[in-house]
């Protein structure tokens, strides 16, 4: 197995162009496990940890650009106030040791339907910046996932960053697992309020072959809130609206039975999490329309 260790982003792109079958490795929290269990036997590894700029973040034109190599721990510490939904999800990833190593870019590249970072990215309308020696393109995150552990990268492309707008309204994330820590999700749900464009964003995890948005649920709730003028003068939500939102989220899912749970339970739990997190974000929006989210983990 070849081990390629570029020290600049340009060299990394050159290396990927020359070795299109090379497996990129950042924190190694997925790749090393797969190698260890012999699920994957790469001909070469492309180590991205020597590229400092990949583990940084910046702000341009009102959006945050998060380098693909930024570990979860730094994401939580440095961006948790502006990306509360993503920070809540990041806190549920593995253990402190895993969060020190694991990165958002790596989570995307693994493209697991159970990846904890994906639902908040979907709910916030994030874009994935991918790059090759041929150039750069920006993909809406829902177009990035193409199947179970499959994504839209060309063989010479690397994930360089995630572009995401700081929260303008409350955000939440909820995860159910079969224990309280260090657990692969049974299912997850993220919600984000976008009052500036009067929209609600959603993201579902472990609910289908890919992470996905519950678009009907978003349309329904955004429409209800706009029609009733609630963005400007928020009131407690009608139970029927909350229930309908939960039902539409559950309907968006197409889960499976597996070792962790049953499809029926997942469908049920997604509806519960949708209702629950909607209650949280709406309470917060009513009480502090300008704030950006509950700091603690669900």
């Amino acid at each position: 197995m070849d081990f390629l260790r570029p020290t600049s982003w340009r060299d990394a792109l050159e290396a990927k162009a020359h070795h299109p079958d090379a497996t990129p490795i950042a924190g190694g929290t997925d790749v090393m496990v797969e190698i260890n269990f012999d699920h994957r036997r790469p001909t070469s590894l492309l180590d991205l940890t020597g590229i400092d700029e990949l583990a940084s973040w910046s702000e341009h034109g009102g959006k945050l650009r998060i380098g693909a190599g930024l570990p979860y721990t730094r994401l939580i510490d440095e961006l948790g106030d502006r990306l509360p939904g993503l920070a809540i999800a990041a806190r549920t990833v593995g253990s402190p040791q895993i969060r020190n190593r694991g990165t958002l870019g790596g989570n995307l590249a693994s493209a697991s339907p159970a990846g904890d970072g994906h639902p908040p990215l979907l709910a916030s309308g994030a874009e994935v910046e991918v790059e090759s020696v041929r150039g750069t393109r920006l993909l809406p995150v829902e177009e990035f996932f193409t199947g179970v552990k499959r994504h839209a990268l060309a063989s010479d492309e690397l994930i360089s960053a995630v572009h995401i707008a700081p929260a303008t309204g409350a955000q939440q994330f909820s995860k159910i697992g079969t224990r309280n820590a260090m657990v692969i999700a049974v299912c997850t749900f993220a919600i984000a309020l976008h009052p500036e464009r009067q929209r609600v964003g959603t993201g579902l995890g472990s609910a289908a072959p890919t992470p996905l948005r519950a678009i009907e649920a978003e349309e329904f709730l955004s429409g209800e809130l706009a029609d009733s003028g609630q963005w400007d003068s928020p009131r407690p939500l009608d139970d029927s609206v909350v229930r309908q939102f939960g039902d539409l989220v559950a309907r968006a899912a197409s889960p499976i039975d597996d070792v962790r749970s049953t499809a029926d339970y997942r469908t049920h739990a997604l509806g519960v999490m949708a209702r629950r997190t909607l209650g949280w974000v709406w309470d917060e929006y009513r009480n502090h329309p300008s704030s950006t989210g509950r700091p603690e983990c669900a």
Partner: protein
Amino acid sequence: MTTAEESMLRANAIGTPLTRLDGTEKVTGTAPYAVEHPVDSPAHLHPLQAAIALGRATGIDTSAAEAEPGVLAVLTHANAPRLASTGNGELEILQSGEVGYRGQFLGGVIAETPEIARRAADLIRVHYERYEHDVELRADRDDLYKPEQVNPAFDTDTAQGDADGALASAAVTLDATYSTPMEHNNPMEPHATIACWTDGELTLHDSTQGVYWTQAAVAPLFELDQQQVRVISPHVGGGFGSKGIPHPNVVLAAMAARLVPGRPVKFPLTRQQMFSVVGYRTPTIQHVRLGADEQGRLSAITLDVVEQTAKVKEFAEQTAIPTRTMYAAPHRRTSHRLAALDTPVPTWMRAPGECPGMFGPEVAMDEMALACGLDPIEFRVRNEPETDPESGLPFSSRNLVACLREGARRFGWHDRDPRPGTRRHGEWLVGTGVAASTYPVFAMPGSQATIRATPDGRYAVRIGAVDIGTGTWTALTQIAADALEVSVGEVDLEIGSTTLPTASGAGGSSGINSWGSPIVAAARTLRARLDEHGGTVPAEGVEATEGMPDNPHTSQYAMHSFGAQFAEVWVNADTGEVSVPRLLGIFAAGRIINARTGRSQLLGGMTMGLSMALHEESVLDPRFGHVVNHDLAEYHIATNADVGSLEVDWLDEHDPYVNPMGSKGIGELGITGTAAAITNAAYHATGIRVRELPLHPDKFLR
């Protein structure tokens, strides 16, 4: 003749919370575990495992593996040493190409590095003839059979009176079936061995619960005298039973080392390999029937257990054993039936028998208390037996009722509203539950201790005991000090090797009983000899060796420890998630030798019981015969975030009959009853009675 009271040891060091004598070594990483022992130029073994559940390897092509640079030898049934037939189908590996279960060892590669060995093992091509396999346990199978006895040597079935008749005429009855899943032991240190042959003799640095147990199992297989197999194991990173009876990994290491004489061969198992070869707790199906009169006095108790064993070797878990001791009833029956399957061999897992056997019946007691309109503590008190229900023997000591009452007081049980599903904390339903714990007092024969006093004022205590993380180094030093009437600092204990006097292993919570008793006997002999020397140690020193003394009380008394466990459980009304914010265990287990390590063992037992209640389940894929969730990412064990307030205490129980220390053994007591207490509390919270472990969220969404 001295009375039992007179022969009891006066406690001085015993009972104190002496810190672990091996603690500094352990936390600084200098205590050597099995494969960490320094050896010269070790070779490394990687196993070849069967990729089918049943059949025969018709051809094994090792040519590519043998051609790999760094490969020293490839082991298969074609070149494996012939083993003597000892009737142990689990250990007699590589004698043919037959495959009895998926993951069974078919060979291995010995190489200069672990990486080369693993790579080369992967290059071996095996051709199989497959037979149809059978790995599914069900209670309605028509081929269940009655084993001759259950582990270790209990009657398979027992019966007294007319249980069916009593049930037919009882005022209140319960008839319910409970189940526990397949569960796997996961000690932190995997099973690991260094094997080395020199001059026809075998040295094993092994992670084992008994150096002499390993010796006794391995020596006859290779047709060696016992003393030609030397086993060394000063520190063990947990065993829980899975390192008690040796498993095929030890045999494979010894076979591999035979191919490279003079070179030590290292063989630590991976976590995934452990799920195939080091045993597991059988799934159990427990059919409980109870009958009582209007006052809640039991007239009949029956427990019929169905569980599995392996075709390659029988292991019969003694699940019904605690039911023979717990509660009074004139009419009673217990039975065990087995399905022999094409699976790996089940084995000991912390409190085999008592742990699963205190789930179904203790949940049944909760259900029956409600049916009788009684508080579950009061119901248990009403059915407290005066003597051991089946043997009729008096108990050497029995303080179940005192544990229940003290626990109730500490837990705040007195104002509990018995109605289920009526307490809410936001979206959480809140409940409390109780269950009893019990474990027998086992004493193993055969241990010997030697103590030598030297003029420098030191006492060398030597016994081939082991410390599997429980605190043996510390506790035996405390016992020796009190028996010698010296301070702990004057005692030099040596354990963990077959170069030391014979000893039984760490199993059945019997270590302190079986090793402490000969230490006390040797100390008393030594002190008598010192008295002959006028109380001074002569220049050449003084030595005494004693074996395990006969305990005349064993046949006169029923000897068991007891306890009461209380749980507070929150179940989410919407998602069914289960949380256990509070557990309390009150135990009566004779004298506790070390208050610190003793508390740790009970806390650890209860944590493992919590883990059993909420998480642990090995999912066997019937199509392929392997455990799907075969690593710690998917076989969930409770994490810190799952354990809330966990409180342990014990009663000062005086029992002069069990042994001179007055101790009963606490390694397994703490895991018994925990899952039942949690399940009973979850019922109290929700009104939903779950009878199958683990308590996964979907079970509360009925």
